[in-house]
């Protein structure tokens, strides 16, 4: 039986992610787990997350999962969601600066810096909360059946800025034109919440469940 592990490090809506994954992969065994063995033995790994970068990194170290996440990201279909995308970068500006997992060179930045780009009198609400468009800038199996510019549900105040533009799989505009999805080898990571993005979100999760590297 196909095993999909959802990494549990006490950060956010793991059960929502679990329910959505189970919904699109009814035959799979979906484990919400902090057990390194279960994670490393799974066929696919989902790395969700919500909350502050400091707390996320703290919990990953406390549970001994930092290396496990990196190992999984090197070896099997791996989906980062929201914070699970951000902490793959080198460094986050959140909480006065936090060193992250460093899988990809680049920073995690706050939207407030984007205010300078806006016309006079306009401002961005922070967090960005709601449905925004994801423009596909790289063909990828996870986009299958999803229209370019489809709307997904976002909740975040920080966004990733990878140094290597070749990692970009999707971009979104919110005061700044930012990377809302990235892809490299067996890793796909997305800033929005596919588990809460209705039909297109479920399609993306289904594509992940069927993704063969």
């Amino acid at each position, binding site marked *: 039986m196909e095993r999909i592990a959802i990494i549990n490090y006490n950060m956010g809506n793991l*059960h929502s992610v679990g329910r959505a994954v189970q919904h699109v992969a009814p035959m799979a065994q979906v484990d919400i787990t902090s057990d390194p063995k279960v994670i490393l033995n799974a066929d696919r790994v989902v790395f969700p997350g919500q909350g*502050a970068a400091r707390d996320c990194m703290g919990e990953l170290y406390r549970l001994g999962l930092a290396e496990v996440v990196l190992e999984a990201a090197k070896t099997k279909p791996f989906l980062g969601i929201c914070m699970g995308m951000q902490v793959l970068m080198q460094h986050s500006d959140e909480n006065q600066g936090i060193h992250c997992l460093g899988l990809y060179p680049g920073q995690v930045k706050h939207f407030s810096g984007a205010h300078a780009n806006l016309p006079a009198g306009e401002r961005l*609400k922070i*967090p960005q909360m*709601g449905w925004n468009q994801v423009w596909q800038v790289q063909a990828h199996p996870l986009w299958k059946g999803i229209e370019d*510019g489809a709307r997904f549900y976002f909740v975040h105040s920080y966004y990733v800025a990878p140094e290597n533009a070749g990692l970009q799989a999707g971009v979104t505009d919110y005061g700044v034109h930012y990377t809302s999805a990235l892809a490299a080898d067996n890793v796909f990571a997305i800033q929005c*919440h596919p*588990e*809460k993005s*209705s039909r297109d979100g479920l399609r993306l999760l289904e594509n992940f469940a069927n993704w063969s590297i």
Partner: protein
Amino acid sequence: MGLAKRIIPCLDVDNGRVVKGVNFVGIRDAGDPVEIAARYNREGADEITFLDITASSDDRETMAHMVEQVASQVFIPLTVGGGIRKLDDIRRMLNAGADKVSINTAAVFNPDFVREASDYFGSQCIVVAIDAKRVNAPDEPLKWEIFTHGGRKGTGIDALAWAEKMVEFGAGELLVTSMDRDGTKSGFDLELMQALNERVNVPLIASGGVGSLQHLADGILTGKADAVLAASIFHFGQHTIGEAKAFMAEQGIEMRL
């Protein structure tokens, strides 16, 4: 193009069942929260808010169970309000599948609860509900006060200052209900929304008073709200969410269609 404005239908829940007459063609049981939520999802609702109006706190489990059933079938953001008083109430709802909780009375009586809740669970899931009523005399500058108990009890707290404080304490979003307009079908209190929009920089949901599609559009265009919440206009089949979205998009509002 960018972030869309949101339409949020609000459902009252008593003992795990949706109450206050939801009346759709093609629904077998008008009180079934899963059927109703699925219907709103199909029509294009951007989120759904459930308001727990059960009087006794023993029924938290019933509410959590209901949220779990909905969350297993309907994959859009869900907010639960009503009776959220302790960190444990929040944990239970989030584990059941809620994405946000809305804190109202508990915030008024214990503002630090908002700080604790946002520190612990993150601002992204903490909505503070603000029930405001105009208290200025007609010839005075506009002034709103926070009311509790469905608008019956004043607190003496200035609504704008309160909103600012709640955001400082970590509220990720404000759900603003005009107690003057609630149930009147005469439209949102647009001046209240404008005043709040000047004061705080988190997303604002306008609530209270919707009687027509124009009211929804006005909440965004004139009130500067980021989202509009309504109940009866959708429940009784007066309008579908799809109609509301098409109407708002025609007025130049960015919507998820």
